């Protein structure tokens, strides 16, 4: 009895001492914090409403690595060193890089801790532009690291914890109190890890090109080694683009440990990597719904981290024309949903420049001749004649695939002139390229038949595309881009578009005959099969009548398992014609409120399919456990960066890798 009393007294004394020390430390910490987190630039891609939830600290569990997976063990009331989930995962089993590197890679078991302040860059290149671009990429890389290190790893989600009575605190002595968090944070900042510096040396010698092209060499090598308290990371690539991917990989070799509140990375590593496909795209439709520049940038950040490299911007459609053209502002005046739901030239340029920092090319598409209507109705008023027909015509089902209707006038020279100007502007804003998208899908011949009944309508369509191509050439300083993409359609089933100039984005079913025909006819193709890579499917019909355009929902496993080049058993020649693939986000039933979770982590599944193209000896429906483990960690990284990626499974399954499969 008396022993208990004296014990309590001793504890009390100890507690008051601790409080004093903490108070002192708190002041110190305040000073260092301001210094460390002083940032010049705001992160543009964060959610404005700040609804992100603090990443929880999981003090109740410790993890141990057993036969290549981490086992969750209760850590309550235990005093030994706790191993956090992330630190266990990063050092247990296969490497955690998404997409998986394509060559043999090695990471040491030994790790180092450091703080973001210790990271320095050294660029080794003779190309000035590359140096500038790498410096930008590095700045954003650091910002991401800082964001991870600064995350509010909420000690007490219970909002009332602070106001709770002391009796509660006593009950939870072993759980994390705010004081404990503070303690950790303070020491975390003080003893900035066991590295004195982390030097990143990026070497790019071969190519000084910073313009996007399908011929960009995206391979890179990364190696790191420790000398005393210095860690040297070397990224070697033949071009800026390869080096940029190296930086994405490096970012994934770094993690934040909630135990010592420091960044960690490997003492030694060796990664050699190159993509299997050169076109790894994601398409966003900004016409059915408008998406802010901020949300587009956020998407690009996630693309960069997953090494997707083409952002196909389906800028306009029949529903709205949000782009404010310098030459023809009437298009947006008549076609945008509102004055604020628009993109200025500056916006497009800004997105393109931002995307380049993340190694992502912006490919704008002004869909034509179909999928154009609202915004094109002012021709007669300006004496230019009808630029488009069937605009908003009813009954719509006679004249287009979905309301509202609209199709450009193929016999009005002004239509082509406007297109030419639009191409010109967009090329200026997004930079030189060897790939451009002309749209060209789903032309409804009945619409045109109302006006040009005497003509061969399919011929008219073909002529339109050829004319658009000619205008593109003019807009591009007299040179046609090497790859001019169009959507697959009835037209691409004829051979009227020369395969030497046109590439086809195939969006039909993956088992359709057209897949084989297009390859046989010599076209280069980009696969966007509706049955696997259409991310908008599965939400039912958005109209009162009719069936859903496509169902069901494509799960991330569906996206991941889709491997058309294997299923089609393509020979070497045909395989070379496959430029890559692209996931499509049509936005009839999506707006900014759920863009992130519709895109992610499913787009990441596509990213690994196209970058690594892992072979699957597994069952058709089953994704290997290792992939679950890695994508789960990658999803966590996205969430840490403020991207609201969807949950893959119950958190239990994330904490207990392999148990739910």
């Amino acid at each position, binding site marked *: 009895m008396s022993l208990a009393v004296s014990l309590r007294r001793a504890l009390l004394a100890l507690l008051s001492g601790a409080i004093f020390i903490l108070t002192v430390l708190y002041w110190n910490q305040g000073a260092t914090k301001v210094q460390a987190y002083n940032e010049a630039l705001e992160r543009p891609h964060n959610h404005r409403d700040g609804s992100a939830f603090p990443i929880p600290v999981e003090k109740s569990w410790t993890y141990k690595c057993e036969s290549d997976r981490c086992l969750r063990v209760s850590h*309550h009331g235990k005093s030994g060193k706790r191993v956090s989930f992330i630190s266990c995962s990063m050092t247990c089993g296969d490497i955690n890089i998404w997409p998986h590197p394509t060559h043999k890679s090695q990471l040491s078991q030994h790790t180092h801790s450091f703080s973001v302040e210790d990271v320095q860059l050294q660029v080794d290149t003779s190309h000035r532009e590359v140096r500038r671009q790498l410096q930008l990429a590095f700045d954003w890389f650091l910002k991401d690291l800082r964001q991870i290190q600064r995350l509010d790893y909420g000690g007490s989600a219970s909002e009332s914890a602070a106001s709770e009575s002391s009796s509660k605190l006593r009950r939870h002595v072993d759980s994390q109190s705010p004081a404990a968090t503070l303690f950790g944070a303070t020491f975390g900042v003080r003893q900035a890890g066991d590295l004195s510096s982390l030097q990143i040396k990026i070497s790019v010698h071969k190519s000084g090109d910073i313009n996007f092209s399908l011929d960009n060499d995206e391979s890179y090598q990364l190696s790191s080694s420790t000398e005393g308290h210095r860690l040297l990371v070397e990224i070697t690539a033949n071009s800026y683009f390869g080096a940029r991917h190296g930086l994405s990989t490096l970012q994934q070799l770094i993690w934040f440990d909630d135990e010592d509140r420091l960044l960690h990375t490997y003492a030694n590593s060796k990664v050699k990597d190159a993509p299997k496909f050169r076109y790894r795209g994601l398409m966003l439709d900004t016409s059915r*719904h408008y998406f802010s520049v901020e949300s587009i940038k956020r998407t690009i950040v996630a693309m960069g981290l997953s090494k997707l490299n083409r952002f196909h911007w389906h800028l306009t459609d029949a529903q709205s024309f949000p782009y404010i053209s310098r030459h023809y502002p009437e298009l947006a005046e008549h076609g945008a949903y509102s004055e604020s739901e*628009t993109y200025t030239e500056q916006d497009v340029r800004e997105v393109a420049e931002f995307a380049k920092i993340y190694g992502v090319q912006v490919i704008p598409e002004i869909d034509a001749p179909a999928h154009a209507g609202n915004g094109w109705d002012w021709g007669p008023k300006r004496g230019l004649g009808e630029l488009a027909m069937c605009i908003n015509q009813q009954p719509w089902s006679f004249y287009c695939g979905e309301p509202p209707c609209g199709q450009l006038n193929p016999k009005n020279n002004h239509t082509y002139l406007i297109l030419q100007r639009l191409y010109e502007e967009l090329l200026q804003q997004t930079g030189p390229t060897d790939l451009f998208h002309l749209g060209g899908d789903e032309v409804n011949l009945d619409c045109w038949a109302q006006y040009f009944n005497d003509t061969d309508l399919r011929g008219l369509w073909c002529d339109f595309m050829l004319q658009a191509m000619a205008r593109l050439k003019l807009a591009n300083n007299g040179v046609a881009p090497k790859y001019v993409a169009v959507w697959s359609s009835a037209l691409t089933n004829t051979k009227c578009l020369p395969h030497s100039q046109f590439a086809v984005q195939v969006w039909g079913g993956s088992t359709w005959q057209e897949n084989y025909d297009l390859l046989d006819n010599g076209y280069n193709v980009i696969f966007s099969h509706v049955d696997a890579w259409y991310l908008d499917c599965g939400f039912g019909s958005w109209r009162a009548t009719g069936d859903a355009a496509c169902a069901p929902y494509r799960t991330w496993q569906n996206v991941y398992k889709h491997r058309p080049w294997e299923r089609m058993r393509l020979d070497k020649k045909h395989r070379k014609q496959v430029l890559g693939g692209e996931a499509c986000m049509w936005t009839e039933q999506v707006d900014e409120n759920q863009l992130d979770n519709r895109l992610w982590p499913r787009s990441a599944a596509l990213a690994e399919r196209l970058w690594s193209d892992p072979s699957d000896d597994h069952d058709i429906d089953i994704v290997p456990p290792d992939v679950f483990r890695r994508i789960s960690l990658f999803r966590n990284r996205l969430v840490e960066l403020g991207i609201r990626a969807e949950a893959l499974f119950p958190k239990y399954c994330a904490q207990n890798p392999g148990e739910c499969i």
Partner: protein
Amino acid sequence: MRFSGYNRYHCSVFASLCLCFAVGAALTRADEADVNSASRKWLCSLTDICTSESELLPGVHYDPARFESQRDCRLSCGKYGAIWPMPTGKECTISNDRVRFDPWKVRFHVVAPGEAATQFLRETNRLFVSNLLKECTRNCTLESSKQILVRATVANETLILDWATDESYALVVRTTETATFVDIQAGTVYGARHAFETLTNLVAGSVSNGLLMVSAANITDRPVYPHRGVLLDTARNFVPLKFLRSTLDAMAASKMNVLHWHVVDTHSFPLEITRVPEMQRYGAYSTSQTYSRQDALNLVKYARLRGIRILIEIDGPSHAGNGWQWGPAAGLGNMSVCLNQSPWRRFCVQPPCGQLNPLNDHMYAVMKEIFEDVAELGAPEETLHMGGDEVFLPCWNNTDEIRNGMRERGYDLSEQSFLRLWSQFHQKNLNAWDEINERMFPDIKEPKPVIIWSSHLTNPKYIEAYLPKERFIIQTWVDSSDALNRELLTRGYRLIVSTKNAWYLDHGFWGSTSYYNWRTVYSSGLPVTRNKDQVLGGEVCMWSEYVDQNSLESRIWPRAGAAAERLWSDPKSSAFLAQRRFYRYRERLLARGIHADAVTPHWCVLHEGMCL
């Protein structure tokens, strides 16, 4: 280009506060003059379609009244205007005229018996104003606002919220030369709060300053079903409090009144049980992914002020595991069995496995302590959801401890024996619950019924042997074609309906399930029966295997709103006729900060009747 910078621009040019004021005032006046003439260009057709005058449809008859915007037009276009869910009373008239007002200048007068009810209504007024402010599209302050005087009269002082609560109300708006008078009459504070919710549906943001309210309206309204719920699972994935509150906000906007909080499951036990801290300590995903006692109490209060009960479910004997594993260490034996066992397919329907041990008396003692905590969290009249679904008999049958225990008690190992064991589990828990309530709330005379999921045990063939209908309300989760609802109704059971092939919001993202869009949710009717009181209502279910705070809001909303109208109004008309009101309802959710899913291209919302 962008409107919002307009006033600021002037201010910076003149750089003088004084001038700025003058210009501001001039602009405001100009705006008001504008509204009355040239910019009023939206019309409402006799078929309930709002169209801009530049796009009038040929052959369609339009009412001569003109409105400044689509939002303005929608306020009174069609019998129910923009009210969601549609009122059910005889009276529902909404004027085409508007008053422009400043939400800060609305005056309230509360007439209620009792201090508690008065206080409640004052809070309601505060929430009402804050919701109005969210409708503001431009500057909402007006120098010369019309006076809005709101009088809310409540007949009964009770704050009890259960299936018997009178949620009806009558709402009259009339405008005289001097002011606009809003008169709200309701039986209880809950009816009154619904009336305020309806009143927000009679208000829209304006293209110039201030808000617009219909100048006259007469609405009587009462819900068809007393149980209008959303089930939210916070065990598969943890849902932070902020998102629980946003769910409650959206429910309040939809006049839903039950949050069925599926707070624990096999996966995790985030709820703090003060009497048994081990539950949370062993069961939570992390020390921060938890709900403290105080959090839960605050949440219950938060919900009540929005006319919502929080009905807590402690699922068992199945769907329980993590959180229960400390028995052996504490000398209480195995309280759960099959826990986290693999291969899971042998022991449960979904990983991780876990099922309570019905032969362990310590488990019942712990359960009783959990119930005591739960009873303290809720209002005295609040009841409990006991779960009781998906018991996987092979789990028990594969556990030696249970097989031996049953043999000792003289049971064979037949299915019927296991069912008996299972029903005893519920009976024992019910006794515990009754005892707690008798002690804690002696004023409540009748023992409260508890709720239980449909399962093997509710098979019409033998349900009467296991679950007395006076004490157990069955929440069914079968397909709409299933005969179960009908059979249980004939046997006199009360039901809460969660039609699996319409109201399971998690479907469509896993296995062979399919997604139910809002029209399907809307069209899903409840079982018809002679004794109407037997069908208490229904719940949409948000199981959280594939949802956490990142996608929760868009998965639930606006679809749950479609169920809200089904449950409040039980409309005879189709979703087709509701769609324009529904789109407006969705926009209100967005304005209130709920990230509701998009349901149709924006163009189709703006161009009514063009995307059929």
